[in-house]
């Protein structure tokens, strides 16, 4: 008896968005590395510092712009069924979560400027005790997901 993988993937544009936002914060690392290089040249410090700084920035960029988003995207699966929502995500630790429909209290969608540009949005599913997030879904899909979850979810009063 094995757990079948959830079927749906999140939008491919999510990968682009993740890469762009990773680029933005990688820029800070490059700026720091650049600063360090300048100082090293200025004060005549040993040159290996420049190599180390640039090397670090390069590895950092590769990790955060290419490797991690790709792995993350590959792993992200979800499925919304009649009775339950199933999520699967994680890069090194794979987490698989099951949320019964009757436990869902409300569903939110939200999007920042970057997500909006790519017509994506994030869906947040809240139960009485936990909050779960599906990042970067196609906007229409997110919308239909939200309506279908709120249609399916009914609060069973006696259980909460």
């Amino acid at each position: 008896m094995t757990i079948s993988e959830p079927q749906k993937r999140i939008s491919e544009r999510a990968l682009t968005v993740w890469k762009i936002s990773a680029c933005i914060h990688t820029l800070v690392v490059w700026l720091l590395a650049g600063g360090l290089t300048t100082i090293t040249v200025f004060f005549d410090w040993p040159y290996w510092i420049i190599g180390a700084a640039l090397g670090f920035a390069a590895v950092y960029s590769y990790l955060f712009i290419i490797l991690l988003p790709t792995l993350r995207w590959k792993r992200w699966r979800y499925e919304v069924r009649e009775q339950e929502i199933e999520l699967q995500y994680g890069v090194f630790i794979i987490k698989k979560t099951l949320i019964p429909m009757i436990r869902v209290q409300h569903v939110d969608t939200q999007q920042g400027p970057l997500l909006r540009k790519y017509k994506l949005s994030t869906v947040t599913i809240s139960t009485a005790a936990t909050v779960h997030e599906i990042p970067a879904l196609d906007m229409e899909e997110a919308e239909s997901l939200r309506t279908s979850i709120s249609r399916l979810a009914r609060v069973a009063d006696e259980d909460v």
Partner: protein
Amino acid sequence: MSEPKRLHPIAAVVNALRQLKELIIPFLVFVVFGSRGTNWDLFYFYGSIGAVVLIFVYGVLTWYRFTYRIEQGELRIEYGLIIRKKRYIPFDRIQSLDLSEGILQRLFGLVKVKVETAGSGGMGLQDGEAVLTAITKQEAKEIHDYLISIKKRAVPEDENQEQETRDDILYKMSATELLMLATTSGGVGVVISAVLAFVFQFEEFIPYEQIFDGVEHFVQSGVVFVSVVVFAGFLLAWVIALFGTMLKYANFTVRKVDNDLVITRGLLEKRQFTIPLNRIQAIRISENLIRQPLGYASAYVESAGGSALDQESSRVIILPIVKKKKIPGLLEPHLTDYHFRVDLIPAPSRAYVRYLFKGWLFVLPIIIAAIWFLRPWGYGTLVLLAVSALWSFLNYKDTGWSLDHGMLTFRYRSIVKNTVYMRKNKVQSFSVKESFFQRNKKLATVEAIVKSGHGGAGGKVIDVEKKDAESIYHWYSHETAE
């Protein structure tokens, strides 16, 4: 009972005193720094008196503005000195009334009533609840009776003339148990730290000896003196904690009244909690390090009620200390949804290696640092490896899970050993986690979350058999279950 009523005037005093208590630290700072400049003394003196008077005036005015009434099936409270606020709480939304009597209230035969609702979550800290600081017992009873009458009306099909309220005593704490509780709780930490402090003091003078050869004797006696004082201080703190616990838990009684658990406790300040049975989300049995070898444990109820501020009302202790063997006998007849005699399936033996390494990973940096910096003595920290291995073994041995009677049971150790009993329909979400290393060994971590107060609580069991994790997953799933 529809005309607006004020609280008993003693409420003004209680509120003022609470305000004072909150202000005590700024107040002390004020006074301490104030007394430096001599000619300012009088100013600070009158300033302090003025502040106290202001607080009392504020307390009285707040009391004057606070009214409550029962109208159209709602408890209507109006309050607020500058901004008038109204809070209307429908009675059928009220989950429970918690009564408590502080010393001031007891002097005048009054009670403090806390009205608990399910809370709408997230919005403000005290959302959906109300506190009547001091009303007469008669008034409290009227509110209670009114609440009961509303609740009865809400379920008409349960033939109304049914059994008159059933009132069973579920558990009453004995004097020995109270003593047991006081000596093995909270204070334990203090004692351990006292012992540590003691030991540390002696370790400390080893380098002293080498450096100040001449003053050795003096330093040594000084250190001994300091350690004795520190130890005495800790002992005193422990005794105070002991009495505190005893006062708090004296007369601890759990009763089952209809479909509620009613808990009363306290000697000076009496408190009463009511937990409707259907609000119980999970039951947790905890054994701390001292109680476990003695065979004692405590039982808690995770309840959905309570406010975010008040952790006490979401995780309520129902058996403060009792022989672990007795727990099933005490609880099973009353909490019929739960079964406490379940066979737990332990983690597979190959998981121990992972527990061991995880423990070592944690202590290794400490050992390396100690050996590096404190050359001769640092090697002593190698003992930590053995301690950590033992601790990991305990952790590993306490891991377990079971699926039985529609109930999921997790047992794990954080620092105390916990056993959490959860019903399927109370579990809010369930996760299976698998790291790269676990995947190689076909192990997985399972985590179930129940509602507790405004947040979540629950349990996590690390390194169960992958196929077991999967079978729990299927059990929890509403669709794949065969």
